[in-house]
């Protein structure tokens, strides 16, 4: 156990070292998130009744957007970041060496995952500061501890999804586009920026079978106080099951793909 922890620490330090080597990454993370948020808000503002930006309804909507956006950012840096990590190691020519090292398979992506949590904190803090400074949005946070628990479960699921994509990236080249499709599917159908009840009945059914819908639902419930779809107890139990299941699936997919590419000798191919 202590060896695995030592590996995790080393992987995290390596990624921290790389990240801090490029100050423009930090600056970019601080600026990009508020800009994305502003871009979406302006794009949606055009559909709202005149002079509604100052109304309390709009403030409530923007606060809900922020928490939806929080989910998007975590999803993005977790799943996309870990998936792309494999591509970066492939193109740098270091993937084969990493996968041949006698280390726990989880260690390979753990550093990236831990880095994702650090960058998410920077990104979301800067976005929240931007929103508060803009004086149009007060960030609501009704149940911080429950929200933290949901975010913890979400991070475990994201690690599982990231492992799945990292594995698929090893086997199939050019998976980044597939991750983009997944991103759109999740953002549109999980009720990230609007409630799933806004969909027609047929699409609402699709939303309700997506695990991500319930993570978003619980985040908004504990942050803004929106009602949940199935009740907070049921959804809490569901999230525990989802997180464990996704993590186990990710672990196995990554292990399987790693084995296949080793046998085929295509680990470093891209």
């Amino acid at each position, binding site marked *: 156990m202590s060896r695995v922890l030592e590996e995790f620490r080393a992987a995290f330090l390596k990624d921290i070292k790389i990240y801090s*080597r*490029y100050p*423009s*990454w930090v*600056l*970019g*993370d601080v*600026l*990009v998130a508020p*800009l*994305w948020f*502003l*871009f*979406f808000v*302006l*794009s*949606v*503002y*055009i*559909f*709202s*009744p*005149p002079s509604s930006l100052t109304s309390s309804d709009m403030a409530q*909507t923007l606060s809900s957007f922020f928490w939806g956006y929080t989910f998007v950012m975590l999803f993005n840096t977790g799943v996309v970041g870990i998936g792309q990590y494999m591509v970066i190691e492939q*193109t*740098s020519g270091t993937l084969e060496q990493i996968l041949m090292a006698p280390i726990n398979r989880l260690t390979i992506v753990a550093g990236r995952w831990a880095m994702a949590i650090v960058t998410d904190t920077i990104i979301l803090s800067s976005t929240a500061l931007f929103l508060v400074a803009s004086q149009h949005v007060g960030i609501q946070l009704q149940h911080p501890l429950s929200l933290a628990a949901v975010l913890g479960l979400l991070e475990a699921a994201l690690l599982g999804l990231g492992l799945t994509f990292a594995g698929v990236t090893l086997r199939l*080249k*050019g*998976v*980044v*586009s*597939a991750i*983009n*499709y997944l991103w*759109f599917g999740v*953002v*549109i159908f999980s009720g990230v*920026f*609007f*409630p799933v009840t*806004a969909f027609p009945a047929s699409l609402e059914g699709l939303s309700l079978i997506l695990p991500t819908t319930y993570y978003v639902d619980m985040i908004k419930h504990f942050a803004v106080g929106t009602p949940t779809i199935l009740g907070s107890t049921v959804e809490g139990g569901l999230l525990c099951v989802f997180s464990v299941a996704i993590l186990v699936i990710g672990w196995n997919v990554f292990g399987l793909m790693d084995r296949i590419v080793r046998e085929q000798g295509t680990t470093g191919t891209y």
Partner: protein
Amino acid sequence: MSSGLASNLRVLRAIFAKDLRQATRYPTQIIMLFALPFLFALLVHTMGNYVGGARYAEYFAQQTGTTNVFVYQVLGGAIWLLSWIIIDRVGSSLREERISGTLEQVYMAPVNRFLLLISKALVQFVTFGITFLVVISLSIWLFDGQAVGGLPQSFLVLCLGLVPLWGISFLFAGLVVRLKEPYAFINVANLLFSILIGTYYPITILPSWAQVASRLLPQTYALAAMRQILLGNAPLVGLQETYAILALMAVVYPFLGFLAFKFFLDRTTVSGDLSKF
């Protein structure tokens, strides 16, 4: 002179063939290019529907002057993504050469460097030209059949708008050569552009200082003119003025962009950092 021209054309053809081969190696990315304008339009449209309720299209028309929400959004999304990809790809291709360890060799080759930069953008021009034709034509055909006649003229505006955009991308390519990690910088700039050009809204909703910055970008004029031609939207400036402004930018921006690129490249070459990342 003619042999110089012939050799330059050979260089262009070789790099184009190489980049096209690499681009077509990942067909899912090409499909993504076609899908992205629709997916973003769908996302923004659904969000707008939620915020504006039953009268969302009416509120949209009050601000934009058209009820054809989807074509308006797809046009904006297509131009925005085109701008993003050209700026990102010209810079990123240099970064990728650097990571692959081939940048130094490429730049030591006895080839005109301006030509190298141009050729890096050529594949983007072709792939996006086709994407534009398919995406916009499909949207117009599905949602506003009468506007089909405006497609050739709008494509002409787009082509004219692409030239200064290349100039901007040269500046970013220079920054890629000089700075070791360009993505954050390019992302910030591309996002600023997406806000300033009025991707999903008219730039008149922006503060006046932001509108001044908007008017320095070729995408703003190209997008407004295309919306005018295809949807009959209120013009930003007249069509003749748009052509004149874009033509002026097409001369000035590539010139300034290449000067900036050369400045950064020379500094990097002197310090011996060309292949470092």
